[in-house]
């Protein structure tokens, strides 16, 4: 599908901060002059459940959700969730996943072989090491904004729009720390 719309699917587990991160990305797209939409679900199924946010931007966006196989980037904060949402990616999609495992409540052992399976299905998987990233930021609260810094290197949106969006969405007084974390993320490779 080539309608000039950029599709990013962010996934993870309830409590990981997906909603704030996707808010910032969508605002960045809007501040850059694009039509932008995002879709997520709040409510019962999110109590400790699987959380997702579809972010789309371009000249004109219709559906707030991404058709399957159409995500340009699958950005995941949890390994098993990366695999769960794989059908939204295609062989060209960039898959960025945090090396983090969160065990579902009723499961005894976290499933093994996730990384092998991901690498088997796609040649464009990139793992992020949370410890490395955390080492270089002042406060763990800024971690997700640091992740957005990593993501920003793969999305063509001006830095000024990112700055504006972060300023609008993070708590007052925490902008400087968040902005530093964003820059740390940008340099992470």
């Amino acid at each position, binding site marked *: 599908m080539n309608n000039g719309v950029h599709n990013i699917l962010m996934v993870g587990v309830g409590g990981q901060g997906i909603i704030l991160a996707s808010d910032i990305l969508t*605002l960045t797209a809007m501040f850059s002059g694009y039509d932008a939409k995002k*879709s*997520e679900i709040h*409510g019962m199924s999110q*109590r*400790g459940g699987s959380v997702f946010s579809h972010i789309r931007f371009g000249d004109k966006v219709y*559906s*707030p959700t991404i058709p399957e196989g159409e995500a340009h980037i699958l950005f995941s904060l949890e390994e098993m969730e990366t695999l769960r949402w*794989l059908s939204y990616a295609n062989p060209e999609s960039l898959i960025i996943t945090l090396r983090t495992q969160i065990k579902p409540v009723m499961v005894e052992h976290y499933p093994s072989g996730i990384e092998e399976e991901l690498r088997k*299905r796609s040649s464009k998987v990139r793992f992020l090491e949370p410890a490395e990233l955390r080492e270089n930021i002042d406060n763990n609260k800024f971690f997700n904004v640091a992740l957005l810094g990593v993501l920003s290197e793969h999305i063509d949106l001006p830095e000024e729009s990112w700055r504006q969006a972060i300023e609008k969405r993070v708590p007052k007084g925490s902008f400087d720390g968040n902005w530093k974390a964003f820059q740390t993320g940008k340099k992470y490779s």
Partner: protein
Amino acid sequence: MDKLLLSGNEAIALGAFEAGVRVGTGYPGTPSTEILEHLTTFPDVYTEWSVNEKVALEVAIGAAISGSRSLVTMKHVGLNVAADPLFTASYIGVKAGLVIACADDPNMHSSQNEQDNRNYAFAAKVPMVEPSDSQEAKDFTAIAFEISEVYDTPVILRSTTRISHSMSVVIPAQDSVRKNGDSTVFERNIKKYVMIPSYARMRHVVVEERMRRLEQDVNNLDINRIEMGDKALGIITSGISYQYVKEMYPDASFLKLGMVYPLPEVLIRDFFSKVERVFIVEELDPFIELRVKAMGLEVEGKKYFSLTGELNPDAVGKPLSALGYKGNGKDKDELKTVMELPPRPPSLCPGCPHRAVFKALHKLGLTVTGDIGCYTLGALPPFTSMDTCVDMGASITLSQGIEIAEGRDREKHTVAILGDSTFAHSGLTGLLNAAYNNRNSLIIVLDNGTTAMTGMQPNPLSGQRINGDETVVLDYQKLGEAVGIENDHIVIVDAYKPDEIEETITNLVRKDGLSLLVIKGLCVILRRKRERRS
């Protein structure tokens, strides 16, 4: 004017504010809750969490017939509770606009059924508008207020989860029609506002005339529009479904309906004359399809699109492409995995003070009639200690039916369990019924000080109003005594003392007569939030 990125719910609130709304009422319910929460952030608007949806609508009717534009918010099943006033509000009409913003939940992301509330517009004979994104959510709210006043009728604004909880770009109005400060007045008009049979008969005629007038006028309403494209494929659609079809078939011809009831027959016939084949794409019931078929027109819809769950771009694109319509086809295959992954079912939060109650109930092996809200999660492992869940307040009443059917009046096997907000919403009448009819059951209220599942809204047991103002708190002891429960059959315990919980339940189950047990423990999420603030 600066562009805003708003959820559908925030946009409805902004639209109401711009339209000069003075009163907002509602009861929390996913996916509608944020409408009223957002409206509370605007100046010069009175807002309240009402005790339930029926109360919310009645308060709003009173304000509207006194000349104040009023917005009522609720989820789809909330309109069942408010259906009683709705059907007669349709007869008495309004003075200032009355808009009911009601959010359906196709796919039941957070609901007990997926009823299609468009059927209420037909049944109650009120117009219904349905936006397709946040901009329309804002604009249609203002239009709904106008229609309400021009046609002297309540108007329902129907949203769905994907409209309410998706965010899109909104351009706010340059200037709003707000006129603030002055209070408005109720003027006596007995034949219009007192629905005794003789006056109601007259009003019913007025209602039918109004709907006939609307049926004509909606053909010229801007929010119903034809977008001509390829004549081979004609689509009639509304709401979120419009976006899905537009995504997959941007070049098709569309009749996009902003008002889904009543339908614009002249416009529909005009559309049929312009295109070769027409499909109706709508979520849930064949609401538009049946009505278009009744016009004698040949149309297809539910033959290809599911009656259950949500639609999405793929659910719309696959059947149409199988019929040979070339749309925005995919040039790459999606990735697939064969690995089986364990699901992540929702669960009671770690640290939830009421987990201990479900552990105790599981251990005691009682039949538990449950209710709506967080505590429904007691039905899932590891607790599996809930046997029924139907609707708000039904825990108390279903247990009465079970007791009657089983005929056990000396030994209690059945325990009703519900949260504080649900108890205030519609547990009180059930409690009164149990006392009045000499039932023998145990009712357990789990009081966590808030309406947690929908995101921490205060209620009559919290001591707080929607805006944080302090207010009275219902007294369980006095309430229990007032309905006639014996003093020593009313027990209030601390949720953080699990041993006491099991012992108290065991004792109360053995006692003759109705008992009320309140287990208090502040919601762990709310507690953490408050700790962070202080």
